[in-house]
């Protein structure tokens, strides 16, 4: 256990991370799966890993999910 969790979390990298381009290309598919209650993390572990680590992509994911849920009322 490290005494510096924020730094440790920031520096950790996940080899499954697909990167921004792949994650954004599939974002609509991933979001629909999450909105439908599916296990998106299990089906797309590389995208899930990326969205956890990348601030801008994580923010776009949250925004798209909010838009979809808002439209569903």
């Amino acid at each position, binding site marked *: 256990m490290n005494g*510096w969790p924020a730094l440790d979390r920031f*520096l950790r*990298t996940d080899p499954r991370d697909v*990167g921004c*381009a792949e994650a*954004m290309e599939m974002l*609509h598919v991933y979001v629909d799966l999450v909105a439908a209650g599916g296990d998106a993390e299990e089906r797309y572990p590389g995208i899930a890993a990326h969205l956890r680590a990348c601030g801008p992509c994580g923010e776009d994911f949250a925004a*798209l999910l909010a838009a979809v849920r808002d439209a569903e009322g």
Partner: protein
Amino acid sequence: MIPVNRVVDEIPARLDPESAEWIRVLAVAGPQREAALARLHGMLLRIAQREARRRGPRMLVAGPELEDLAYQAAADALMAITGKLGQFRGESRFTTWAYRFVILEVSAKLGRHFWRRPDVPLEAEDWDRLPGRFGFEPARESEWRDLLAALRRAVDTELTARQREVFVAIVVNGVPLDALALRLGSSRNAVYKMMFDARRKLRAALAANGYLDDDDSGRS
């Protein structure tokens, strides 16, 4: 990093009734298409306004400028959607596919606005921000002083010049990743990849010197 294209190939391209209706009316010129475009624009604009208002203050964009940004994002997204309609493969609902365009437009436009701020640091390196950035408490400075020095040493010795530039801009100076990509004439993906490699190198250097655990699986 692994490709996910193979996953796409496994998804059946079946359209739900609502998506099929969107595609049907948008595909043929006429009053139905015009009405659908107006409706879609209204939906995109609402999303753009909400996102712009949520993210704008952080980027010091507000008022009419923020409204203009939202209108422009909705208009550009609508143009992209109509231009790429043939690329919609039914992997998601049509509206989810369409909303993605406007979300990405808002992100890109806010990134451009960042550089209009008068106080943007790029060349200066304010390393004093790092303790706060990583939650290091002033009262425990005697414990983290050596770690911070080791991190700074690793940034100087382990990273390439480009990786160091990206690390300093994003982590030390707080420049948003999208804004930095624009400034470097690069892409979000390329800058993220540089940071990914930098993070991996820095963690390995700190672990080798006993400051962090050796395990770097990164999995949760």
